[in-house]
């Protein structure tokens, strides 16, 4: 493309021949109002608000639309001549005669000095700018919208005004509609507690704040490009050209010297405990939902609100939901008492609500924890010793106090109580992740009856596992709070670094080995090794033991039908000698 020189309001600029005047003006910082223009689409010149005066060297002038008027050498553009203003005014007045004063039109009218449109004010909300139709067509690629009918009946709709099967609900039409003619219906201001986790997100976003790497990724389920092949706006605006739509999940093989398993926990689902009405009554929340609501970036901006958007008058916090419960988890989840107290503190800080803590035992065992408990007591929190038994809708006589009724036994006064509250928080148990068994199998470690990974020794090796080089950190090993998790994680890191820096690793002298001359390759041992130390040499037709992986458990030794596998320091001869010694 050849470069041509044009001037806008007297300011010269070199642009590509045929490029549009509006872009040149933008480059020069000269503002030209637009309604139907969007930089990523072909100009349409429907609103004609961007009218400017074009003049050649001989004095010939005409009004043109800046958005689609091509530049040619010697072109002079004027954006604020009386003729331009008049043209814009007339165009705006005509738009307003059709369309009710949307804020964007009102602003323009103020700017251009249009006080009373000569042809009256219309009742429609659409200015026929076509942004919606064109964005759906050109950018999104869904082709779900069109103009239908002609003349004064012309309007934007789906083909035949039927519910469109092509619409992907991306919302681009509503987002770019300048007048608000197209709207996505919202949920009426209600806060769906169950959707608290779904913060507002675009299809390309940083998954969460602490994400590593801290870079955006495209969610293929919501990306317009993935759905229609169109859009690609993000790649058009990214100055570093980082967007790669072809990128796929990849599996990489890494050579590593140590493994730290920190897979955490999952929240106990209180739905099956029907007496608490979780999932049935909208204002019965699990602790993690309440925690998310309190986050300043939550949909409620950190406010404590009921589903109807009002502040609760009273809140009950129920401890030990699923923990210390013969029917669910017998163990104590350890963290709930403290976060329940924190919740009470937050409620007191943010609202005027009454708070009831219903607990079995208050386990405030950590450093500074008991002090925090004492502080909560002085903040006017009602602390009731007794596990919450049932939650039911409150009968009408309680309506001035709460919508829900918590039934419990207050064991300190020996009385059955019914407490009306607006909101209930269930302090759900921490439980082992559903896939903990798979992880355990993968890393040759074991899980206890509750599904937590088992450490090598509960007191002396709480970070190690029975598999050398595999360490545990955090709740995956058992419920623990943040300080304990950090301590264990740091220890695991230290252990790993020690291993990585050793260069040579000392092995236990006791391990099993296969005497090749006696192995007949029957392969009975092949599937037995819990540490995957045994492999079969297809060429020699004998099995082999990787002594670095062997833990000398002896399973293969017992199984080997030819006695080719020997446990060093625990040979058959040695054991027979011991037996004979004992029996002698």
């Amino acid at each position, binding site marked *: 493309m050849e470069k041509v020189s044009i001037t806008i309001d007297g300011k010269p600029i070199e642009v590509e021949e045929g490029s549009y005047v509006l872009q040149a003006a933008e480059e020069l910082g000269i503002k030209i109002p637009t309604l139907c223009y969007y930089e990523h689409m072909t100009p349409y010149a429907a609103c004609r608000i961007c009218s400017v005066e074009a003049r050649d060297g001989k004095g010939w002038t005409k009004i043109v639309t800046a958005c689609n008027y091509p530049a040619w050498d010697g072109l002079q553009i004027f954006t604020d001549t009386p003729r331009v203003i008049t043209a814009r005014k007339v165009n705006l007045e005509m738009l307003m005669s059709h369309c009710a004063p949307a804020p964007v039109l009102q602003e323009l009218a103020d700017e251009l000095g249009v006080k009373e449109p000569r042809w009256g004010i219309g009742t429609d909300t659409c200015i026929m700018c076509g942004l919606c139709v064109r964005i759906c067509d050109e950018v999104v690629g869904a082709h779900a919208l069109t103009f239908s009918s002609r003349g004064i009946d012309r309007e934007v709709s789906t083909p035949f005004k039927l519910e469109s099967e092509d619409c992907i609900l991306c919302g681009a039409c509503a987002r770019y509609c300048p007048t608000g003619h197209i709207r996505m219906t919202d949920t009426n201001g209600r806060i769906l507690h169950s959707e608290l986790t779904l913060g507002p997100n675009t299809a390309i976003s940083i998954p969460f704040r602490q994400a590593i790497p801290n870079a955006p990724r495209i969610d293929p389920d919501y990306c317009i490009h993935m759905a229609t092949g169109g859009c690609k706006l993000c790649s058009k605006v990214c100055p570093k050209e980082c967007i790669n739509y072809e990128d796929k999940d990849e599996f990489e093989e890494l050579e590593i010297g140590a493994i730290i398993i920190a897979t955490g926990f999952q929240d106990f689902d209180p739905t099956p405990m029907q007496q608490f009405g979780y999932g049935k009554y909208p204002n019965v929340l699990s602790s993690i939902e309440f925690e998310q609501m309190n986050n300043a970036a939550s949909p409620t901006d950190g406010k404590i609100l009921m589903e109807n958007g009002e502040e609760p008058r009273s809140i009950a916090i129920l401890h030990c939901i699923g923990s210390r419960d013969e029917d669910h988890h017998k163990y104590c989840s350890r963290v709930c008492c403290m976060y329940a107290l924190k919740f009470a503190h937050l409620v007191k800080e943010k609202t005027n609500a009454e708070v009831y803590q219903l607990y079995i035992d208050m386990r405030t065992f950590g450093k500074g924890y008991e002090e925090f408990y004492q502080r909560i007591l002085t903040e006017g929190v009602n602390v009731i010793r007794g596990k919450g038994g049932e939650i039911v809708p409150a009968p009408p006589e309680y309506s001035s106090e709460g919508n829900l009724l918590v039934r419990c036994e207050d064991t300190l006064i020996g009385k059955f109580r019914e407490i009306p509250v607006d909101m209930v928080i269930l302090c759900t148990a921490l439980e082992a992740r559903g896939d903990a068994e798979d992880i355990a199998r993968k890393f040759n470690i074991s899980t206890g009856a509750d599904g937590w990974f088992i450490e090598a020794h509960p007191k002396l090796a709480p970070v190690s596992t029975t598999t050398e080089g595999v360490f545990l950190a955090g709740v995956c090993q058992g419920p623990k709070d943040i300080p304990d998790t950090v301590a264990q994680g740091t220890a695991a890191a230290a252990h790993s670094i020690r291993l990585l820096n050793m260069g040579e690793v000392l092995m236990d002298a006791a391990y099993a080995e296969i005497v090749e001359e006696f192995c007949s*390759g029957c392969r009975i041992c092949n599937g037995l090794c819990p540490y995957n130390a045994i492999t079969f040499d297809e060429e020699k037709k004998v099995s082999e033991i990787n002594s670095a992986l062997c833990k000398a458990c002896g399973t293969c030794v017992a199984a080997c*039908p030819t006695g080719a596998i020997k446990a060093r320091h625990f040979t058959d001869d040695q054991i027979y000698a011991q037996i004979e010694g004992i029996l002698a």
Partner: protein
Amino acid sequence: MAKPKLAIYWAASCGGCDIAILDIEEKILDVAEFFDLVFWPCAMDFKYADVEAMEDKSITLTLFNGAIRSDENYRIAQLLRKKSVVLCAFGSCASEGCIPGLANLCNLDSILDYAYIKSPSVNNSNKIIPQTKTKVPEGELTIPRLWNTVRTLPQVVDVDYIIPGCPPQSDQIIEVLTTIIDILKNDKPLPEKGTVLGATDKSVCDECTRERDIKKITKFIRPYEIIPDPDLCLLEQGIVCLGPATRSGCGAKCVLAGAPCRGCYGKPQNIRDQGAKMISALASVIDSTDPEEIERIIRTVPDPIGTFYRFSLADSMLRRVQI
């Protein structure tokens, strides 16, 4: 120079070992040419007195087959030991008890009771049981006393070498005899005492060419229940094959013909108790963690002692069920 002397004897055995020796076909001529055959009751007429008359250590090689379960077996075992330079336990009976050894599950009284009185095929209304001494008009008849416990040859006398198998395979017999002839002819050193001849140190799997993979057994199957895959390890097909815990040397003939190994070549080099070892190995590859399921799978093995100790009971760590 006088020819080296060869003795072949049968104690408690079926005679199969003697037939196996004859089964070496024309090679028997080489044996007859090299050795002076001084004692072979199965094939020729010799008297114990002839052997007793020999000088000690005058027999170069004795191949002794059969288990020791009578005074006569024991006496001749001791006699041949005294007269022989090299005494070989020949075949499964002599080396590990074999089928006669299964008698050790019961005691002598119950065996005689069943064999002469209770067995459905016996008509013995007078309940006559063989006695060691019987008076007849002509005088007193004696027969050797039967033992309560069947012994292996190495359990009663010092044995130099063991040739396993029920019976030892003829190609292995040829191999052993050829080697011994070669040693004697060329004055080479004898193998170390206690060596197992005519076999290898590995197990039958070593000679078996069936395809093997990781074993996971969910059910034991008896051979008549399926037509086994001709190329796949029988054990992997659920058939109890003792190949993994049996010394090789037989050429895996049974297994390659589609019949599971019954273990006649005895325990491999490093094993003390063949049956226990096989049970231990099988238990390791049962594909279940549920105790009831495991119990159910184990119950699909019929006659565990007869299966796992068919040849080795007398030589095993097991003791009789019936005292």
